[in-house]
């Protein structure tokens, strides 16, 4: 999940939780507020009534010891005064039910006793509770709506702000990391940001990539230069040996020794040529502009290599039942790719074994598999078979220096072909080449 999504999600959830908590507590809160308010109001009214009573005299309200009572028309509030025994002392506010004209109504009642002229009076001021509850409901839903609106507003604000603040991070990921072709990096373009952390991240990534690239560059240059430099001395030795061959005085015995030297030199030349080829591929010095028919290419490889099949009495079968062209490829390299794979299939095959090249379409990709009935590759060796100079002596009949598969790897990477290997010891190996859609036509 993206950082921005996570942040927005967290913000939204946390705010929602807070609001729900608030809304759940709202009835109690409102009730408390209302009660306090009512109680305060009742006290004020109590003071007012007592002041009025003192001013007007109690007789104005109570005559012949009869109580005084007054209800408003709506029965929401009432005031009553009564004479109570002298020892009764009260000063409370509580909820009580009263029956007024046949209706049972819940009242918040202030009961207060006061003494005027050696008589004890009880003052009661009541306020209907239903009016209190009535205000609580709308208040609650209003609070909920206002809060919900505010939450949506803040989530949107969060989203926009995090989007704005995190944009440089997204850019760093998109332009520097995703799709960066290792180790060929694009030219450094500073990501525009005022956030120092991102600036630091961007410059650090860039520094690391520069280091990696320069190391790779140095390695490639070294291999390329070393191979080039080796070519001249090899050339001199080769010419010297060739010239010695044509000297008549050189005996056949000496010539056989010269031949041995020539073989060793050829081995050296082959290694140098291979390294040079790999470094040239990795330096992208080949042009991908050829169009080749897959079956033609495979037949060419077969023609080139058929002599080796005869040596081991191997059967060879090409089963690519369709006309597919590979476009924007380098024919020389693809030829080398198949040549090396088929050559390996021969080299590690058993006497009278077989090699089969099959082709199939999978979605828009093309898969070509080269299978042999050879000695197979040990499971523990499989991850290393494409490593340069990691040589496994599987066959003592043929000698090689383990650069065939690194060539294969370089060529497949150059053409974005995915290569997978399936192998079982003493049963055989299958190299599967998955050609991407963009180089397939037909």
């Amino acid at each position, binding site marked *: 999940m993206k950082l921005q999504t996570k942040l927005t999600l967290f913000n939204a959830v946390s705010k929602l939780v807070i609001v729900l908590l608030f809304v759940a507590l709202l009835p109690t809160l409102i009730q408390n507020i209302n009660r306090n308010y009512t109680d305060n109001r009742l006290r004020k009214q109590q003071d007012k009534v007592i002041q009025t009573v003192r001013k007007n005299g109690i007789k104005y309200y109570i005559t012949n010891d009869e109580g005084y009572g007054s209800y408003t028309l709506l029965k929401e509030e009432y005031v009553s005064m009564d004479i109570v025994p002298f020892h009764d002392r009260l000063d409370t506010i509580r909820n009580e039910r009263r029956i007024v004209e046949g209706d049972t109504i819940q009242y918040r009642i202030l009961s207060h006793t006061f003494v005027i002229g050696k008589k004890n009076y009880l003052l009661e001021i009541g306020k209907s509770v239903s009016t209190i509850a009535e205000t609580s409901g709308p208040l609650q839903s209003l609070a909920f709506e206002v809060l919900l609106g505010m939450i949506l507003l803040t989530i949107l604000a969060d989203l926009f702000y995090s989007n704005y603040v995190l944009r440089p991070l997204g850019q760093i990921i998109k332009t520097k990391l995703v799709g960066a072709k290792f180790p060929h990096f694009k030219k450094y373009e500073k990501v525009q940001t005022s956030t120092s952390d991102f600036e630091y991240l961007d410059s650090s990534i860039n520094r690391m990539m520069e280091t990696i690239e320069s190391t790779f560059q140095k390695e490639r240059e070294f291999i390329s230069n070393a191979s080039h430099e080796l070519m001249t001395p090899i050339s001199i030795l080769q010419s010297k040996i060739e010239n010695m061959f044509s000297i008549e005085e050189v005996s*056949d015995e000496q010539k056989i020794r010269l031949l041995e030297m020539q073989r060793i030199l050829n081995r050296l030349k082959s290694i140098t040529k291979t390294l040079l080829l790999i470094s040239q591929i990795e330096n992208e010095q080949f042009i991908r502009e050829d169009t080749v028919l897959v079956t033609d290419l495979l037949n060419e490889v077969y023609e080139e290599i058929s*002599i080796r099949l005869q040596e081991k009495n191997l059967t060879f079968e090409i089963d690519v039942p369709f006309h597919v062209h590979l476009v924007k490829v380098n024919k020389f390299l693809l030829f080398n790719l198949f040549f090396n794979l088929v050559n390996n299939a021969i080299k590690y095959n058993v006497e009278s074994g077989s090699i089969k090249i099959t082709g199939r379409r999978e979605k828009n990709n093309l898969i070509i598999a080269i299978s042999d009935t050879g000695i197979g590759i040990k499971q523990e060796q499989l991850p290393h078979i494409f490593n340069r100079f990691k040589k496994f002596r599987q066959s003592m009949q043929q000698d090689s220096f383990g650069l065939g598969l690194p060539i294969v790897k370089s060529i497949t990477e150059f053409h974005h072909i995915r290569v997978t290997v399936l192998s079982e010891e003493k049963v055989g190996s299958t190299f599967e080449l998955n050609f991407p859609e963009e180089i397939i036509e037909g």
Partner: protein
Amino acid sequence: MNVLIVEDEKALARELEIFLSGNNFLCETCYDGVSASEKIATNQYDFILIDLGLPDYDGLDLLKEAKRDNPEAACIILTARAEVNDRITGLDMGADDYLPKPFSLMELQSRMQAILRRKFGLKHHLVHLGNFVVNLTDRHISYNNTIISAVTKKEFDLIAYMILHKNRTLTRPQLSEHIWGSVVNDDYDSNYIDAHIKNIRKKLNVYESPEWLETVRGLGYRINL
């Protein structure tokens, strides 16, 4: 035939000289660009072999001078740097051929002969081997005017290469280098040359035993003409 060898690696220049002189070429050698430039301006050559990587001179400049001062000469570029762009530039500037180092002297000779045939209109394309006739231009072998179609491309390459170096023993590494050329693989020793020769013999034996194709024990093969 006059050849100017421009090569700063003295050892290689010397070997080129020995080889070409042995093949009846008259050789002159320069180890640097300045003296080569002088020689090109003053003499006429049939072949100029130019090493592109000269320490004091741009090989391509030298090629330009050669084309200007020595228009009849066939120029072959020799270089350790064999990148496509170098090759294209060299050939575009009028080089007749291009030989990346390390090259086989035999190949150099073959290419020089090919240039001779092409450039000087020499026609050696029909070669008689016993009752067999090899047509180097159409690339086929015939017996009593019947083309032997069983001979494959590779096998013909082998025969043609041995014809160009007739009467000389060619070793397996020499033959395989010529036959495999640009294909890079990691085998440095294989007996597929023997297998090819065996196949050629088998195919020709149907008509007549190819006595002219000789196996030189322990060394290689030779076509005797």
